[in-house]
């Protein structure tokens, strides 16, 4: 094998690609579509940055200015007084302009915030969860620690049927435990270090945001959805959207298991920083019951996660 001619291998690959392009129109079109997609994305991003190649705007403005700030006007007493006066007037004029600009910017920002709020309400009403891979709440609180062995085994025992989706998957302990029970499972995690740790243990942990992943899944795809980990740090709007989406993505006899710590048990700093993020197990039960699940609380022998919510579908999935 050490005699393998790699140049020949490269040539074979290139020839194979050319042959497939000639035989398979779909592949050729796919390449064109990909190229077009990138061209559009790159143009929209980079055009935001485009400036004149001849210099930055300040340099251009300086060269076009009617007054040369560096004119040598001497330092005689009379001139000094005029210079002082010009400086003072310039200062007050610049301040006046700045105030005007600030007022304008403030009004504009208020207006934009109003628009954002209205759009948010519209999106919420339509069940749209946004497409950001970094959800609100990310970075405000630390990512919750990996689940204890007690939580892992309890949750794995509650996984009904497969396939099972674990959001967020962390380093994959829950996915692994469910897999050991013969149920197909994968997790989604947004922290690359945890994804790396999971992959090192050969666990199917995928990279990405929990909400976009759920939105992108097929309706009725999962037998069990486990909500845990980073779900503790999501705001109410996202959590309500998550319940709606999870409901859609579950099979008719599917089950949702929620393993989260009660926000009321947070230390003071976390409680203040994370105000409005996460829900207690009791509220999760309420939300799931509202969504048509038969939900109950099970005590769990863990210092952080003291109760686990198990919700079994009893009614057909509701539309968001």
């Amino acid at each position, binding site marked *: 094998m050490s005699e393998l001619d790699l140049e020949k291998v490269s040539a074979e690959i290139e020839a194979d690609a050319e042959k*497939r392009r000639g035989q398979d129109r779909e592949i050729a079109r796919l390449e064109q579509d990909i190229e077009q997609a990138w061209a559009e994305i790159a143009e929209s991003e980079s055009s935001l940055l485009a400036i004149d190649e001849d210099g930055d705007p300040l340099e251009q403005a300086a060269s076009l200015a009617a007054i040369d700030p560096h004119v040598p006007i001497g330092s005689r007493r009379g001139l000094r007084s005029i210079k002082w006066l010009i400086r003072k007037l310039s200062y007050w004029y610049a301040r006046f302009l700045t105030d005007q600009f600030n007022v304008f910017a403030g009004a504009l920002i208020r207006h934009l915030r109003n628009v954002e709020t209205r759009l948010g309400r519209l999106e919420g009403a339509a069940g749209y969860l946004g497409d950001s891979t970094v959800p609100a709440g990310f970075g405000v609180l630390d990512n919750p620690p990996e689940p204890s062995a007690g939580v892992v085994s309890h949750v794995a025992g509650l996984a009904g049927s497969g396939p099972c989706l674990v959001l967020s998957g962390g380093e994959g302990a829950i996915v692994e435990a469910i897999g050991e029970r013969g149920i197909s499972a994968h997790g989604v995690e947004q922290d*690359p270090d945890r994804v790396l740790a999971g992959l090192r243990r050969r666990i199917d942990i995928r990279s990405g945001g929990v909400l976009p992943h759920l939105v992108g899944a097929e309706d009725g795809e999962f037998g069990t959805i486990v909500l845990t980990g980073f779900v503790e740090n999501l705001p109410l709007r996202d959590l309500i959207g998550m319940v709606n989406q999870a409901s859609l993505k579950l099979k008719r006899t599917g089950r949702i298991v929620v393993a989260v710590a009660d926000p009321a048990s947070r230390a003071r700093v976390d409680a203040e920083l994370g105000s409005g993020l996460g829900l207690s197990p009791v509220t999760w039960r309420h939300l799931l019951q509202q969504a048509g699940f038969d939900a109950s609380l099970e005590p769990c022998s863990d210092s952080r996660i003291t109760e686990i919510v198990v919700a079994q579908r009893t009614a057909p999935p509701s539309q968001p």
Partner: protein
Amino acid sequence: MSPTVDLLIPQMATGDATSNHTRLIQQLLEEKGFETRVVVERRSRSDGSDLSVEKWKGDARVSILQHSIGSEVAQFVIRKKTPVVLNYHNITPASYFQAWQPELAKSVKRGRQQLGQLARLTRRGIADSEFNAQELRDLGIDDVVVAPVLWKLGSGGPPAGQGDRMDIDGAGTVLFVGRLAPNKCQHDLIAAFAVLSRFRPQSRLVLVGQASPPQYLYSLKSFARQLGVHSRVVFAGKVSDKNLLQWYQLSDVLACTSEHEGFGVPLVEAMANGLPVVAYDAAAVAETVQDAGIVIRDKRPLTMALALHRVLSDPQLRQSLRGRGIESAQRFDISVTREQMWIALKDLVEVED
């Protein structure tokens, strides 16, 4: 009293390849008994041993300038007309950054202009690769030596011939290591990965490295989302040395679609860790990989995807690439490259005034 050797560099920064390279040259020369001093544009070391370029007199026996971007340090050399040893790491063409990061584009343009002026002051050129050396010769520098960048090669991979890496789930993990930047063309890699996903739906792509500029990263994420592969693309960001080693060990193939590489440190690191390499033939890539990886001349998505698929599907090919890579990476072991650097500098630093 001036030291024998001044080492000029725009800035010393932790985790920066050129900074580490400069420190290793300093260490080498001091071990050989020469007095050295690092001259920087902006001082950053708390011990204050580095000299600010404003105070630099240019009277050391040898001044070695690290050049890869426009800098004030290079401007001082030009203004003082000081003869230097030009350690050239190549300068990325400004066209790659013009649309994304105009400030950086200006800086690299300035670097190119300075390179032309420095050519007249260069006593000897030291280039990381033959590709870089040729650029110096084209500028009229006759005395050019190739000596690779100095760095301590991290390796924890299996020895040649032992074990196979396809052990996560058999899906195939494609790795890229390096800055996420327009000249590195990670968008081409994502495009190839989207096609690869048709052959191997469970495969994943891991991009390790800091984004520069951030807008490029946002675009890459949008692109991955638009192609429907976002859940299988890991943007790992800047990682620790330990995690980097783990990614090398965990992955199944390193892919490089970069259009401008003056050398290609990650290619060598991958080879040293027994990771097969599939790379686009641009700049110094083929020279660095030599016959230890698959180098292709066409990086359209299908071609690149088929190359990756071939490596992921053919255990014998992977085994061969692994063995060759580990062997080939020995060329860049610090003991070898230090010796090359010493040979490049010896006659200059040993000559008495």
